């Protein structure tokens, strides 16, 4: 029965969708919306049979779920709100119910049963839609997280043989991994013997962060380079001592400048002001 009414349903659905005030014409064109809807209905009607009506696990449903999932994910990426994505499915339900009502006019009992079935089916489909929608959103978030960690750990070559790595933001274990890997890789590539880890931008140092720092310093030493920690603010020095964290094995300096001065001393370099008067 639904097969015959396919066209009818589509028209109604489109009408419902277009009537919705929340329609985002800025994000999707009418034609695109129509082709999406048509594709979904074709799959839905084509795979519909009496037995599998409520059983979403069955194989016949997988193409429908796939199409729906695809639509949900694209919408998540395009920036649709959950309400707008939900309305896409709910308006189909409305359309189906309306058609059903027109068809079965004489038998309220059948109408009720069929409506119930359609309700159940569409509810299941909307759950699927939301699941995939949220997954799509999560993917966007994960990608952004990756990008942030990537840009937040630059290794700077401040002098021949001296690397600096300013850390900004909280230092958690995932971040430490990336910092450590980047730093060690850079040490190998540049053959630097001193690395300065500047923590001016780290809001707080607790025992866990300290552990991460110690780990990085130890790994650097194993490679045969020295690691200096600079940018320790007075508050951080206070908390470190109050927490009883032992940093005595690590060379620590208050500022990046003093760390650099120390590195020059170790490398037996001297920075001097020239005595001769500049001609310019």
């Amino acid at each position: 029965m639904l097969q015959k009414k396919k066209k009818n349903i589509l028209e109604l659905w489109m009408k419902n969708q277009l009537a919705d005030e929340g329609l985002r014409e800025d994000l999707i064109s009418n034609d695109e919306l129509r082709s999406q809807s048509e594709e979904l209905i074709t799959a839905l009607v084509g795979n519909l049979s009496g037995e599998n009506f409520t059983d979403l696990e069955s194989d016949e449903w997988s193409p429908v779920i796939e199409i729906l999932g695809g639509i949900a994910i694209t919408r998540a990426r395009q920036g649709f709100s959950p309400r707008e994505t939900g309305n896409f499915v709910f308006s189909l339900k409305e359309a189906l119910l309306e058609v059903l009502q027109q068809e079965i006019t004489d038998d309220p009992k059948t109408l009720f049963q069929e409506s119930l079935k359609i309700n159940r089916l569409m509810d299941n489909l909307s759950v699927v839609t939301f699941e995939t929608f949220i997954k799509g959103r999560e993917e966007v978030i994960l990608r952004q997280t990756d990008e942030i960690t990537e840009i937040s750990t630059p290794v700077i070559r401040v002098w021949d043989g001296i690397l600096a790595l300013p850390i900004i933001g909280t230092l958690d274990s995932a971040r430490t991994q990336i910092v450590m890997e980047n730093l060690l890789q850079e040490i190998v590539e540049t053959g630097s013997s001193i690395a300065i880890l500047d923590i001016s931008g780290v809001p707080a140092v607790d025992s866990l962060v300290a552990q991460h720092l110690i780990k990085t310093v130890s790994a650097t030493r194993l490679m045969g380079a020295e690691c200096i920690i600079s940018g320790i603010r007075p508050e951080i020095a206070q908390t470190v001592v109050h927490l009883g964290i032992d940093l005595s094995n690590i060379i620590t300096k208050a500022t990046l400048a003093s760390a650099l001065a120390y590195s020059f001393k170790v490398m037996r370099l001297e920075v001097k002001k020239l005595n001769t008067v500049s001609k310019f």
Partner: protein
Amino acid sequence: MTLSLSKDTIQVLKEQDVVFLKNRVKETAVKIKMGLVNQTRLLTACSELVRNMMRYANGGACVIEVVSSGRNNGVRLTFSDKGPGIPDISAAMQDGFSTGKSLGLGLPGTKRLVNEFDLKSKVGEGTVITIIKWANG
């Protein structure tokens, strides 16, 4: 939920088998695009566990699996032997504990290198150790 995607069992009875096992583990790790540092962690963990198996139980078997959980892929290794078993698991998991003449870093160190670590042992029957290392984690 963790799904197993492929499965491979390798018997480890002599020293050549150890090399073969490590190569297979490495291939598997490369196949799922595991980063170099994580590969090294996994292989080091594997090396520790297989040495324990050789030393205390005269060998055993290792199952290499590619597992998947959500969008994350990983390698699961299951080492099972029919050796003497571990009488005191909590002691064995402490740094510096060893019944043999080693540093006693094998088990606790291995646990620090992998994402999941499970040890089951019965005295007189054997030991089963399962570890999972995720490709990015």
